[in-house]
């Protein structure tokens, strides 16, 4: 059996705010296999970004606080490592790409410096070698005239180019795992399409394991092998991409898909009632229950565990007390509304 790249077990993260304790990530567990591309979908506050930032020690603690759990990265528990040891992993074995390439690059340093420093830090190359590697990386991510870009500042590049630089930084030390947090959200559709192509291409060529965090179902569909839908700091549904899209078993994934205009031509969009939960006072049971027309009384009471869907492909898991296909069949008026 191949060992997973990442094995997260029962991770719980809270924020101590003046208004109370905010439950950002709740008892989160999942594994990621080598070469896999995991698409994590969720809205703001679903814990999708927070959990990766916490495990890499990138969230300030306080206010963030890890309550429990372990994060095994190639067998080592990241949460047990010292900051110094984590530093050796960040940027080298785990690369990251963040959402807004304008604010995520230091505006006062050149592209070259920002690339070189990560290369020199981890690969132990000298300045000239690091420059050469930087040029190579910029070429790899499809930036024309890479040598000339080294002396430029972030604001001199377009948004798409900046995001390519971010990706180059993320890939600089041939990481085992690349984590992209809303990496295309701030980009125009055509540019987004190019970045997706680029990532897909790199994945094929380098075999990098990828976690792709987004709120856009479309992007996940284009890129990911596995999709993981998160809501209120929990996984609602997880599985290979096709069954989840074609036969979602969580009411949340189902609602999301039905509210997309591209899936609902000439039909009224499915409208998810209510609004995302207040994570300081989360609902006691299934967090989506208050907005779920199919919710059973138990949904409001107990948190459902993430379980394999009996009649679907292996790995298709859902956290639900209800059986969605049955529920939809029983209430066709909801589905058509």
């Amino acid at each position, binding site marked *: 059996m191949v060992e997973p790249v990442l094995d997260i077990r029962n991770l719980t993260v809270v924020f101590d*705010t*003046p*208004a109370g304790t*905010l439950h950002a990530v709740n008892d989160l567990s999942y594994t990621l296999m080598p070469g896999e591309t995991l698409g994590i979908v969720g809205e703001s506050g679903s814990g999708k970004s927070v959990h990766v930032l916490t495990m890499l020690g990138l969230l300030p603690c306080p206010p963030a606080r890890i309550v429990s759990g372990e994060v095994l990265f190639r067998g080592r528990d990241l949460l047990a490592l010292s900051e110094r040891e984590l530093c050796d992993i960040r940027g080298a074995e785990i690369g990251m790409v963040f959402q807004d390439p304008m604010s995520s690059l230091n505006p006062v340093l050149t592209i070259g410096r920002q690339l070189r420093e990560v290369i020199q830090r981890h690969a132990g190359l000298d300045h000239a070698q690091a420059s050469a590697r930087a040029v190579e990386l910029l070429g790899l991510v499809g930036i024309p005239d890479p040598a000339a870009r080294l002396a430029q500042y972030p604001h001199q590049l377009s948004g798409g180019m900046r995001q390519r630089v971010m990706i180059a930084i993320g890939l600089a030390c041939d990481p085992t795992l690349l984590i992209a947090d809303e990496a295309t959200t701030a980009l125009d559709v055509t540019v987004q399409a190019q970045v997706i192509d680029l990532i897909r291409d790199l994945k094929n060529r380098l075999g990098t394991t990828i976690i792709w965090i987004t709120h856009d179902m479309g992007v996940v569909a284009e890129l990911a092998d596995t999709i993981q839908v998160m809501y209120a700091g929990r996984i609602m549904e997880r599985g290979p991409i096709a069954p989840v899209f074609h036969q979602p078993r969580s009411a949340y994934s189902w609602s999301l898909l039905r509210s997309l205009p591209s899936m609902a031509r000439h039909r009224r969009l499915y409208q998810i009632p209510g609004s995302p939960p207040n994570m300081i006072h989360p609902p006691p049971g299934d967090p989506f229950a208050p907005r779920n027309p199919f919710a059973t009384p138990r949904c409001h009471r107990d948190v459902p565990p993430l379980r394999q869907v009996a009649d679907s492909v292996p790995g298709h898991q859902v956290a639900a007390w209800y059986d969605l296909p049955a529920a939809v069949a029983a209430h066709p008026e909801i589905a058509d509304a």
Partner: protein
Amino acid sequence: MTRFCSTLLHSRAGLAGFVLLAVFVAGAALAPWLHLPDPTAIGLRTRLSPPDWIGFHPLGTDPLGRDVLSRLAFGGRTTLAVALTAVVLGAVLGTAIGIIAGFLGGGIDRVLMRVVDIQLAFPLMMLALLVVAVLGPSIGNVIVVLAVTSWNRYARIIRAQVLSLREREFVLSARAIGASSPWIMVHHILPNVATPALVVATLELARIIVMIAALSFLGLGVQPPDPDWGQMLAEGRLYISSAWWVVTFPGLAIVLTVLGVNLFGDWLRDYLDPKTRSNR
């Protein structure tokens, strides 16, 4: 109000500032009812009496035999009243100019900003000295001088705020419903610059209290026999080596008041800052 109190009670620094400020403001405000000796009553035979905690002059007397405690309390009245008036005047003037310059832009803006530049290049203390020298020292003129040296700080900061507010969508939205420029300035810009103006005002209050003291120290401030902290320092500085209490107490009063204003002001800025306000 409840939120105000509970947040304040949770901030040690803010609370300390508030308490310091409250003590001095209360002392100043209640001075006439505290049964203190007349702060202007001269007793040449008892000049420079050292502090006598249980006696008639708990903080001693000044070079003219006047009670230091009483002068401190009544001096606080003058200092704080002058400072507050100057701050309010400067804030109103500066905010109005900042809003007009920032919102209307164009030629008015360019002219006003050049005036700000000129005033900034004019060394503050020299300007104050010259203006007081021209107008003659009096409370009114000190207030005018302080307001004059203060308005541009509001104007600059408020103008910058207005420039970004002007592009905010609720301003466009007000235009879209046909609201006039004055309407927008009053209903949309003003309420939104009130907070930054208040923040600048607390900083200015601290600066102005020190400035009043400096002007008085150079002999240009409040006119005797009315007490004023800076003037007490100026009158006492000849005696610093023989009568430490004459300069120590007014000096401490200034330091603690300004400290209180700063602490409270810092807290107020955090409290009013929308970034820290709603935890999104």
